[in-house]
């Protein structure tokens, strides 16, 4: 047989997932000189782009423009998309071994970490990601219910997701009406009774994960005043010393912005957004109907670790914050894939630089790779996944050079297509997605919005005439 990676015998790669990492990996493979590679990308949803569609906030449309790059990759003649096809259900690892030389898992971090405190299961306590997926029209979450008749809500965490949730809760219907937020979410948030939103940070202003543009944006909301309790905006001695030593200008700017919020006069806007620091939830308190009525917080102080990080330690001083809604955003983890080794400690596929590792032998599983959040955990911005995907693809190419690949019986592209047609006749191609994309944008245009999303798989398929 002709050498692998040539026109006569192209390298066949399956990409599981279709978020940013999946496209960066596909792009890097397709760009290799002297290598003919044919890629099939799979997603359990009919729509591609992963968190760019289902995670990035609707009022951050500009960030979503990154998908233009992904469409370019998808336009390559050696690229195919199979949407509405789920790995582990419609196609299995055995099918993949039978049809491809390599597989790369780019399935992200799909589930959230719990706070592990009493009362977390009370009504009104949610994962922030559920709320995000709901307002972004993710089919699995569109039927979630959030009690927006409450007046006070707390968001636990000060990362990107926490900031998004707090901001969306504070937006006016007019502000949201120009976004691609799901129509039912626009309607529900339009009736929202929320008056006060709390963002709760475990550590101090200098350690907060949010970026300066994000925190600045919170100070420019049409209908919400931002406030930081002055005592909590002040840096403790250790943070001060650390900042003095590092001269980190971005952090200095962050602290400056937060301190300006502490002394900003109240403009009497209908909503208030309060950013709190050095507090950790220890319990959610419920009423007689099993609903959240308050969150019990412990005040923290910072202590240095041996490696120099300032960590939060509880002081033993407590307070109760009355809230009717709690969104936790304290970390995320990946979901194991059927038949793929998983590292439960870090919530990722067990891997070394993207090579999937066999837990018994600690040796690489030939042919299997991973990239993105399922490889390193949830960190960084969209672009961070590019070097990450490149690292994995480099391993794939090294192994290919050593002939370390699956030995598929049916590598010809028609074979897997026939199998998929049999298992999931209603699969969606990239051309189908581009049609769906146009329909969504046209529906949005009539309403003066960037797009009006389909939020049910059945509606998407119906729009495509399936």
């Amino acid at each position, binding site marked *: 047989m002709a050498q692998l990676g040539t026109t006569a015998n192209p390298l066949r790669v399956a990409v599981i997932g279709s978020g940013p990492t999946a496209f960066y990996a596909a792009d890097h493979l397709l760009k290799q000189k002297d290598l003919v590679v044919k890629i099939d990308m799979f997603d359990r949803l009919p729509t591609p782009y992963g968190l760019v569609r289902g995670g990035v906030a609707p009022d951050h449309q*500009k*960030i979503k*423009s*990154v998908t*233009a*790059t992904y469409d370019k990759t998808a336009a390559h003649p050696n690229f195919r998309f199979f949407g509405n096809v789920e790995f582990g259900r419609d196609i299995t690892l055995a099918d993949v071994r039978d049809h491809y030389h390599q597989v790369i898992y780019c399935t992200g971090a799909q589930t959230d970490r719990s706070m592990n405190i009493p009362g977390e299961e009370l009504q009104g306590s949610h994962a922030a990601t559920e709320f995000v997926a709901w307002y972004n029209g993710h089919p699995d979450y569109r039927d979630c219910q959030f009690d927006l008749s409450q007046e006070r809500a707390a968001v636990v965490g000060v990362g990107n997701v926490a900031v998004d949730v707090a901001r969306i809760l504070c937006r006016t219907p007019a502000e949201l009406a120009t976004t691609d937020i799901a129509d039912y979410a626009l309607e529900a948030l339009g009736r929202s009774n929320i008056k006060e939103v709390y963002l709760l940070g475990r550590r101090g202003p200098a*350690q907060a994960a949010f970026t300066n543009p994000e925190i600045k944006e919170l100070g420019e909301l049409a209908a919400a005043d931002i406030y930081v309790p002055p005592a909590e905006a002040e840096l403790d001695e250790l943070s001060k010393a*650390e900042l003095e*030593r*590092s001269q*980190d200008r971005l952090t200095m700017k962050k602290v400056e912005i937060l301190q300006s919020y502490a002394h900003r006069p109240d403009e009497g806007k209908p909503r208030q957004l309060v950013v709190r620091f050095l507090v950790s939830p220890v319990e959610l308190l419920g009423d007689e109907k099993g609903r959240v009525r308050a969150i019990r917080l412990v005040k923290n102080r910072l202590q240095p*670790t*041996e*490696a*120099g*990080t*300032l*960590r939060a330690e509880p002081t033993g001083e407590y307070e109760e914050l009355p809230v009717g809604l709690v969104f936790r955003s304290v970390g995320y983890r990946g979901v194991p894939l059927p038949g793929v080794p998983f*590292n439960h*400690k*870090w919530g*990722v596929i*067990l*891997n*070394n*630089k*993207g090579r999937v*590792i066999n*837990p018994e032998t*600690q040796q690489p599983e030939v042919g299997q790779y991973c990239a993105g959040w399922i*490889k*390193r*955990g949830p*960190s*960084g*911005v*969209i*672009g*961070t*996944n*590019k*070097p*990450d995907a490149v690292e994995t693809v480099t391993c794939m190419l090294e192994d290919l050079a050593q002939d370390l690949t699956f030995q598929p019986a049916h590598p010809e592209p028609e074979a897997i297509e026939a199998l998929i047609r049999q298992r999931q006749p209603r699969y969606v191609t990239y051309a189908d997605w581009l049609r769906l994309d146009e329909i969504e944008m046209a529906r949005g245009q009539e309403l003066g919005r960037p797009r009006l999303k389909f939020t049910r798989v059945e509606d998407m398929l119906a729009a495509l005439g399936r």
Partner: protein
Amino acid sequence: MNIKSILAKKGMTVVTIHPNQSIREAIARLAQHNIGALVAVDEANLPVGILSERDITRALAQDEQIFARSVSELMTKNVITGLPQDDLISVANTMTERRIRHLPVVEKGKLVGIVSIGDVVKAQRDQYQGEVDTLQTQILGEKA
């Protein structure tokens, strides 16, 4: 970003050695795994020292008969360890300022990994590269 995200893609094994083992065995292990340092652990698998290639080179310059000596004689005994939650930036500062090239990571009394200065620099580089890339895409908008 914290050092957990570095450990997550390094598999699960940390190459260790017992302090009573010989430098000969240590060198073989360093070569076998193509690494620059070994964590010396006690019976409870807790780090009691760290032995780097530099420790070996330095000893070798003074004594050509070091192969039969024990790891405990040459290793650095005051090991600075990290936690999975430690921030990448403070770890990078600590390692640079204190000239540490390998940081064993301990969680709840157990050795769970090791990060090298190379890992830290690469993670930082990837982070900055990702941020620049994301910003450029946003600034260029549709034209990207």
